[in-house]
């Protein structure tokens, strides 16, 4: 096979580099370095006119690289390890590239790298970027595969763009109508490396502090009914039942046996558009009654969980009721668990007992604790001092500065020590209303922790101790947008309002992208078929619709591709002239191939004197348009005239030479 030149190698290496750039943020640094070194060595060798390194070198490097990958990742399965391995293989392939065939394989690798990048990120910009990479790669491949003379860059790029453009309708049809799977074909390996975002499956004081500084969006909510007031929006996430003295752990991830709830209050119906967070839980308002997420379940903690980590954007339509009465008493076993305050924090337990002695009623005790938070100098801060052992003791009696996690944790310990079953609930509170469209944005900065206590006869009751000391905490989040027009908005916010508005408008676009593209699924396809008036849409009909649409697009494509073969296709005048000839041929006067326009007109005039004037002037227009300098009749005018020309219907008595004559002089002047 033919040796590859330096420039060929350089162009394909550039394409590979562009594809690898899409991975650079998620790749381990050493992978990037190895790939870069491989590329640099090969290009350096080619620059000096050398070939690939000897085979034994390549083999050694390949074995080493694979071994290192395995040692690092402990697996080749899963996205991060697979991607790293693919990138390394591409680097090695570049190092060994010596024939055209090697280059072809690299182009295939580039296409696959693009897909791998899209499995990791769902950004609109990334897709655009990768389509660009695909375009450049195709143009490079075109140059590589075309025999001599090698096409120049510019026509290759143009041709690549043209083929891509022609592929777009077909892509759309496939994308819209290709049947989607309800779930994965096989369980995806849990990517331990993939960045989990948002809340975690344990809570230590300080965890949520980091979240509070993140602007990242956790989920968006469209309310189908009137929304609850923002201060009532508690988006329930993982619930913690066990306390180690410092960390809260162990949600009861077992499915709930039977819904022993009596739901009350107005039902809220809403769609949660969850961003991928690599955890199994799904956020919803208390108390969830209905949801349309396949295979998802409510745990005994009343949190919605899915069998797989949420790694794609999903939409969940849910119905919740704000109040619930628990009809069954708590089991004794669970009760023991929920009452265990842990062995640490002796001072806190002492405090609880002494307070309890003063306030025998459960609710009295609760208000007493809340009053303590409100009246004593407890501060709410994003930068609390670090706490070591006996963290609750330290917080309650020494530092007195904390975030929602500290208060929820301390409150639960106090409750338990006083004999009231309590647990910590994490999730999000409030949200930002996007008034440019009708939905709420819940960001990581809305992350929150609160408590639930078990009151006999009522069941679990939510208590938010943080709101007791710092009411502005609840107020503050809402002020972002809801009360944007109220007088309480601080002055600087007014200045920054256009910025906030711009951000919200941008989010509308993002939400649109999410809603229309990222979460497109079987339901969307069914809605699409309903729009096409297909009764009872199902998977089988979808395949038929896909086949029909593909057939149509193929017909269009065939026409589109062959159209360019028509020698008249690029010249509108010639195309119109061809139409004129076709019309005359229909009237029994076909043009002979050797006849020019004038000769043809003369012959037509001879055989059909009634058409003589029209045909002669039309043919003259054509000659002028094609061969005379610009001026006179335009191609569009010529087309209108030809369109109006009806040789079959013109009778000798109805000749209207005046219809075209007046323009004769102008046309001839143009020539």
């Amino acid at each position, binding site marked *: 096979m033919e040796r590859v030149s330096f420039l060929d190698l350089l162009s394909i290496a550039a394409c590979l580099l562009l594809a690898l750039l899409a991975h650079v943020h998620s790749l381990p640094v050493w992978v990037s370095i190895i790939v870069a070194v491989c590329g640099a060595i090969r290009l350096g060798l080619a620059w000096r006119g050398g070939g690939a390194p000897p085979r034994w070198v390549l083999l050694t490097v390949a074995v080493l690289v694979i071994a290192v990958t395995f040692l690092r990742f402990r697996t080749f399965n899963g996205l991060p390890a697979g991607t790293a391995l693919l990138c390394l293989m591409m680097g090695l392939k570049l190092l060994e590239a010596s024939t055209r*065939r090697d280059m072809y394989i690299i182009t295939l690798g580039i*296409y696959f790298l693009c897909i791998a990048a*899209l499995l990791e990120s*769902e950004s609109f910009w990334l897709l655009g970027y990768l389509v660009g990479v695909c375009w450049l790669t195709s143009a490079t491949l075109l140059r590589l595969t*075309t*025999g001599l003379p090698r096409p120049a860059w510019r026509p290759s790029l143009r041709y690549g763009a043209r083929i891509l453009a022609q592929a777009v309708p077909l892509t759309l049809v496939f*994308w819209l109508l290709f049947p989607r799977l309800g779930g994965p074909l096989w369980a995806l390996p849990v990517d331990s490396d993939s960045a989990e975002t948002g809340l975690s499956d344990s809570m230590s004081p300080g965890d949520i502090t980091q979240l509070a500084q993140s602007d990242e969006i956790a989920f968006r909510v469209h309310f189908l009914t009137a929304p609850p007031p923002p201060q009532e929006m508690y988006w329930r996430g993982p619930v913690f039942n066990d306390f180690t003295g410092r960390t809260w752990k162990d949600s009861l991830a077992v499915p709930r046996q039977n819904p022993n709830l009596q739901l009350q209050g107005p039902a809220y119906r809403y769609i949660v558009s969850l961003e991928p967070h690599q955890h199994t839980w799904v956020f919803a308002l208390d108390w969830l009654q209905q949801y349309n997420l396949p295979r998802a379940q409510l745990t005994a903690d009343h949190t919605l969980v899915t069998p797989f980590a949420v790694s*794609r954007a999903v939409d969940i339509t849910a119905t919740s009721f704000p109040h619930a009465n628990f009809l069954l008493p708590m089991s004794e076993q669970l009760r023991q668990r929920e009452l265990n305050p842990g062995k640490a924090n002796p001072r806190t337990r002492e405090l609880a007992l002494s307070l309890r002695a003063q306030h025998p009623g459960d609710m009295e005790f609760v208000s007493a604790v809340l009053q303590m938070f409100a009246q004593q100098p407890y501060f709410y801060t994003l930068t609390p001092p670090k706490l070591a052992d006996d963290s609750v003791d330290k917080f309650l009696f020494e530092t007195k500065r904390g975030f929602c996690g500290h208060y929820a944790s301390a409150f639960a310990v106090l409750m338990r020590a006083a004999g009231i079953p309590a647990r910590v609930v994490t999730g999000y509170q409030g949200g930002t209303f996007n008034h440019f469209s009708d939905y709420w944005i819940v960001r990581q900065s809305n992350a929150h922790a609160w408590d639930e206590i078990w009151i006999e006869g009522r069941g679990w009751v939510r208590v938010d101790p943080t709101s007791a000391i710092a009411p502005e905490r609840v107020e503050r989040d809402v002020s972002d947008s809801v009360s944007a027009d109220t007088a309480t908005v601080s002055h600087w916010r007014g200045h920054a309002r256009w910025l906030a508005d711009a951000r919200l408008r941008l989010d509308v676009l993002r939400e649109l992208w999410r809603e229309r593209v990222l979460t497109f699924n079987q339901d969307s396809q069914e809605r699409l078929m309903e729009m096409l008036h297909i009764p009872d849409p199902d998977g089988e009909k979808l395949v038929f619709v896909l086949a029909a649409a593909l057939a149509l697009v193929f017909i269009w494509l065939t026409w589109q591709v062959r159209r360019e073969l*028509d*020698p008249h296709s690029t010249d509108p005048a010639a195309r119109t002239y061809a139409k004129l000839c076709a019309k005359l041929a229909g009237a029994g006067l076909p043009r002979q191939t050797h006849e020019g326009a004038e000769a043809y007109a003369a012959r037509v005039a001879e055989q059909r004197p009634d058409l003589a004037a029209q045909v002669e002037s039309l043919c003259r227009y054509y000659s002028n348009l094609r061969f005379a300098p610009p001026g006179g009749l335009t191609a569009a005018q010529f087309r209108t005239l030809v369109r109006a020309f009806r040789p079959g219907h013109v009778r000798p008595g109805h000749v209207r030479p005046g219809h075209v004559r007046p323009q004769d002089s102008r046309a001839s002047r143009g020539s």
Partner: protein
Amino acid sequence: MNSLRQAATRKLRTWAARRGRDVLPMRISRRRIYILPTRFGLMLALILAAMLIAGLNYNSNLALAFAFLVASLTLVTMHHCNRNLLGILVDVTPEIDAFAGREANAEFVLRNESNVERPDVEIRVLPASSTGAAGIGAAGIGAAGAAGVGRVSARNDAAINVVIPVANRGVLHVEQFELRTRYPFGWFHAWTYVQSPITIFVAPAPLGSRTLPSTGASGTAATAETRGDEDFSGLRTYQPGMPLKHMAWKSLARGGEPAARTYTGLSSQPEWLEWSALDGLDAEARLSQLCLWILESDVAQRPYGLRIPGKEIAPSGGAAHRFACLRTLAAFGAASD
């Protein structure tokens, strides 16, 4: 795998040949263009399948969109590959002369009347399939055929030469040739068969040590003598290959046939190049010697006749005569079969 493909190709070729001969120049219609993915295309299909499964499994609409884009790109490419041959007018010189041990140059003319360029059109002259070409014709084309590649720009003609190495003397009958393209991207391979006979007359290699019979030892002097182009002896119909300076421009200007003036040298008595004069040589060596004599006589512009067993060509001169003689040598032994 490979033999299977060869068998399939053979079957397809005989099937295509059943349509009968094509009249040249022939326009390539869409019905006769076959298209299949290349090995590279099959690899791409594998990658595409993997991309699709990845997209479906990870339930990623963007990955799916990209996979579908590449798949659609492939399907569009298929159309473009097919189009690269569609509507081309093909013509070829039906008779080619060559010398054994050298190359035959089959000249194809491709006309592209459309506005799109046709890069990378390959013409492959195929060896006669199983039948025919017994014995002498077997010289030359290997199993893969001989190929030439060219590009036909928009609204233009292109000549593509297919160089066929010919080893042995004989007459080679090519019944079929193939137009093929892998443009663009090399993912698909579109091809068509054209049933049109091309005859390659492979004259023996001009070799030999014997001098021309009449000139005797003073061959070089006689050559110089016979060069005389002073004595005008009349007009002959112009044949390609005649010296342009002998063109009878005046008669052409008067509207006559293109003609060339012929001259007679001093020693213009016709010369017989005879098989029987070459005793002691085997048949092929005799033919080679005769071939050399023909060329020498032609260069010397001396009329010559050829006499070999079973065939006699009256003395004459000029390119047409030369070709007739060379073809007689090429066909020697074949006609009697």
